[in-house]
Each structure stands twice: as C-alpha cells, then as structure tokens.
C-alpha cells in the first residue's frame, strides 16, 4: 500500500531558540489509525498543525495525497485543507449556532465566498449533515444550540463538522482530554469506526497511553520534538515508554502492564 501522508525531515522553530520539532520523519498509510503520544510540550500539536499548514514548518517536506503541502499557494492550500478534517480538545464550535449549522460549516471550503458568507447550503448538503449526525447519535440535538450540549456531544458535532468535508484524513488534537472516561470511549469508538469502516486515515494526539495502545494501528512517540518511537503498539516496551515520557514514566508502565495482561 502506498503512503497517504509522508513527513520527511520536518523541523519547526518558534523564534530563534524554541525548537518545537527537529527532523521528524514518518509515513502513514491510507486508512491507518495513528496515535501520537508524548509529554506536554513535546511538539504534538505543532506537528499536527504543520500537516495542514495552520503552522508553517521551518524546513522539510510534507506530502499528502501526492501533493507537496509546503509548496501550495493560498488557493491550493484551501482546496487541500478541505480534504483534511480537524478535531480539537475544546471542540471549537460556534456556541450561538445550532448543531446542524456548526456541522454545515465543514462545507464552507467547497462553496463560493458569497454562498458561504450567507450560509446557503444545498439540500444534499443538509441531508448529508442530518445523516452524519444520526450516525453519531445526535438526532435529538440537530436543532439545539451547541452551547446546550455536553462535552461529549460537542465533540461529536466537531467530528460531524469534519466528516461532512468527506475528508481523506482526520487530524485530532487531544480529542478526549476534556472528557470523562465514558464520553472518551464513545469518541474513540467513533474515531476507530471512521478509520475502519470509512477508510479515513486518522491521526490522534493523545495524553492517555492506555487509550493509544488500545485503539491504534501505529504509535508515534515524541519527546523534545523528536520521534523516539514509531511502530506497532504490540511491540512497545516499558523502555520505549520511558524514552517517550522521560522520568514521568513510572505510573504509565503500570498502566501498560494492565493492557498487555488484559
């Protein structure tokens, strides 16, 4: 299988001395479920944002769907971004708008500026929005204002907004960091489904090692802006976890032991 996403020698400097990423290399297959783990400040968010160029990488090459992301002009970049959905820790919905309005925002990149400004959507788009919201179990919430939803429901709207783009890939920046365990499980199950059933590639930044090990095809471990592990969750050893997390790893090894036992 060919790679959908290829990240080669990517580095990112903020200012003169903050090196957020240094010489990051990895590739992701179509439909693969990849978790990026690492301590706070390791560069996980920066890495995700370099992929859809919310942040410009300082050097290196990023190929997505045979397109060199770093060489795109503004218009081409917008077009490529429509193929990449993004999901956030804080959901980032427009609180005052309804669930379906927020979902349809995922279509803005496909519309003329004017139609998008006025929020004019086709019937097909609206039907697709309702279909996606049904799949995500939000059929009762479709016309509710999004600030009336629970965290887990808001995150599902976030997923719906990404899915209606018909994306090839989802970038998820700590999607469950603000959720309780049961909502977290719902969200992770949906993301897994999306990758398995729809064949959409999923890249997730995660804090919880146990969750990453349970759901992922591949784990990428980052520490200090460098990839220190890239491989299957089955082969990961306490040593690897220690290298990814540095000295905080004591407790985490215990968690992993449980997973491997179970």
């Amino acid at each position, binding site marked *: 299988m060919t790679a959908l996403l290829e990240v080669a020698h990517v580095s990112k400097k903020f200012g003169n001395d903050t090196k957020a990423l240094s010489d990051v290399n990895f590739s992701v297959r179509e439909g693969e479920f990849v978790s990026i783990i690492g301590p706070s400040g390791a560069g996980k968010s920066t890495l995700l944002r370099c992929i859809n160029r919310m942040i410009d990488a300082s050097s290196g090459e990023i190929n997505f769907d045979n397109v060199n992301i770093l060489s795109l002009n503004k218009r081409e970049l917008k077009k490529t971004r429509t193929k990449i*959905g*993004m999901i956030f820790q804080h959901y980032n919905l427009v609180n005052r708008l309804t669930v379906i309005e927020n979902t349809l925002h995922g279509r803005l990149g496909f519309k003329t500026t004017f139609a998008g400004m006025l929020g004019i959507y086709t019937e097909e788009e609206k039907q697709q929005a309702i279909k996606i919201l049904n799949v995500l179990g939000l059929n009762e919430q479709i016309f509710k204002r999004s600030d009336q939803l629970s965290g887990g429901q808001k995150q599902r709207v976030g997923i719906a907004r990404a899915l209606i783009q018909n994306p090839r890939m989802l*970038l998820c920046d700590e999607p469950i960091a603000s959720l309780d365990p049961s909502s977290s499980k719902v969200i992770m199950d949906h993301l897994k489904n999306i990758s398995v059933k729809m064949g959409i590639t999923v890249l997730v930044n995660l804090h919880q090692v146990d969750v990453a090990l349970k759901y992922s095809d591949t784990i990428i471990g980052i520490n200090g802006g460098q990839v220190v592990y890239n491989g299957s969750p089955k082969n990961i050893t306490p040593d690897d976890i220690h290298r990814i997390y540095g000295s905080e790893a004591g407790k985490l090894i215990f968690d992993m032991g449980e997973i491997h036992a179970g």
Partner: protein
Amino acid sequence: MEADEKIEKISSQTLISNSPSKRIRIRPLTKASLVLRGTLVVLVLLTAYTFYTIDVKDVNFVQGMIGTAKNVKVMFLEPHLSHFSFSHALYQVMITLGLAFLTTVFGAIIAVFLSLFAAQNLSSKRVSVVIKGFAAFIRAVPTVLWVLIFAVAAGLGSVAAVIGMTFHSISYLIKAYSESFEELDKGVIEALQASGASWWQIVFQAVIPSSISYMISWTFMRFEINFAVAVAMGAAAGAGGIGFDMFMASSFYYDIREIGAVTYFILVIAILLEVLATQIKKRLKVNI
C-alpha cells in the same frame, strides 16, 4: 527547644518582624497611590481657594438660592407651550430622533467593516493598532466639537451635525465591536480555517453570529447617546429638532415654562428609549 529556634530563624529570614512598634502595611506605597494622594490634596486646596476668592458681586447667596429654586419650581410645576403647539413639539422630537437614528445607522455600518480590521484576531497587528489609534483619537474629541469642526466646511446646520455625529459614532462603535470580536475564541477561527473556509466566510459564519447580541446592545447604547447629542446639536449647531425649540424658548423668549415643557418631552423619550434598551438586552441575554 531546637524547633523553636528554627522557627525563629525562619521568621527572621522571611522578614516577619515581631516587634510591635513597626506597623504592617497591607497596601504598599506605590508611585500610583502617591500621585493619587497628591492630586486629591491639590484639588481640595484649589476648591478652598476658589470659595475664598469667589466674587459674588451684589448677589446675596441666600436670595440667589431662593430665586433659583423659584425658577425651577415654575419650570417644572407650571410647564406650558406658548410659542408652538403640542403636535409641532412632537414633530420636532421626531426630527431629533431621526437625526440620532440616521447617525447611528451610518456609524454602525461603517464601524462594522472597520472594526473587522481593528480586531486583532481577524487582522494584522499593525492595521489593528493604526485603526484603533485613529478611533481613540476621534473619540477623545467630544462629538460637539467634531460638529463644529465640520461646520467650517459645511456651515452650521444639519449637514455638519450628521457628519460630526456619524464620525464620533464610528469611533465609539469601532471600539465596542472590535472588542466583542476579539472575545471570540481563537480556536473557532482556527477550526474554520482548517476546513478551508475563507476570511469573509469566517467573519459572517462565526465572528458576527457570536457577537451579534453585543453589537446590538452597543449600537442601541450609542443611539441613546446620539439622541442626547442631537438635542444639544439642535441648540448649539442649528441642526433643528426639539433642541432648537428649547434654545429659542430659553435664549430668545426667556420662557421658563416652555423650557419645562420641552424638558418633559425629552425626558419621556429618554425613558422610553431606556425601557426599550432594557427589553432588548433582556431578550438578547447580555449584560453591558
């Protein structure tokens, strides 16, 4: 014993003084508080000096007070209209309201677009600073002064009033609007950018829907201000409306009772506007 010594040592290290002679200051004497105190002292001295040197000529203070009280009593307890009719007064109030409405609408439309570029999360830092700086300068000069400045070119009258009042409304609303735009979470803008939405789409689909109720409240607040200014403009700049009738009653006819009547007119309108504003804010659920 040893523990006691240790505590002693720590407290002396952390400069907790045990001697009762030294009072503990809760509020440190900073430069700002010194300046504030100095200013207050100077103001008190100036006030005392003014009272001491005031020149009352032959007016007896007590008699003056009684006279004023009598005038106020006549003004508000015996109001009547003698030089124009009730319907004329009503019509003039409408003109004043119209002036306030027009300048608010003009100001709001122009301010919406400028404030998009003044909001730091939607614009570049440099453009934002330039626009906000300009707006702050315009705001610092009172509306009446702007009307008089434009009167140099347009002549005293309604044109100067409309331009001057619009000018000041724009700068006021730029501040209000751009600050409510800046309240919008950066993440929301990021989310729409990441899905390929354009700047104008983000403005109309996320920024304005999120701030619309604040914008309406601020605009209405400005309308109330503009009504008051429009009354003054009728008197001071010949812009017409109820303010002009009041000016005539006071400076031309010396008719205290008519001034009282006009004041009641303005008061009623002001109360109505206030009630309307409260209702709107209640509907929109905002507090400003």
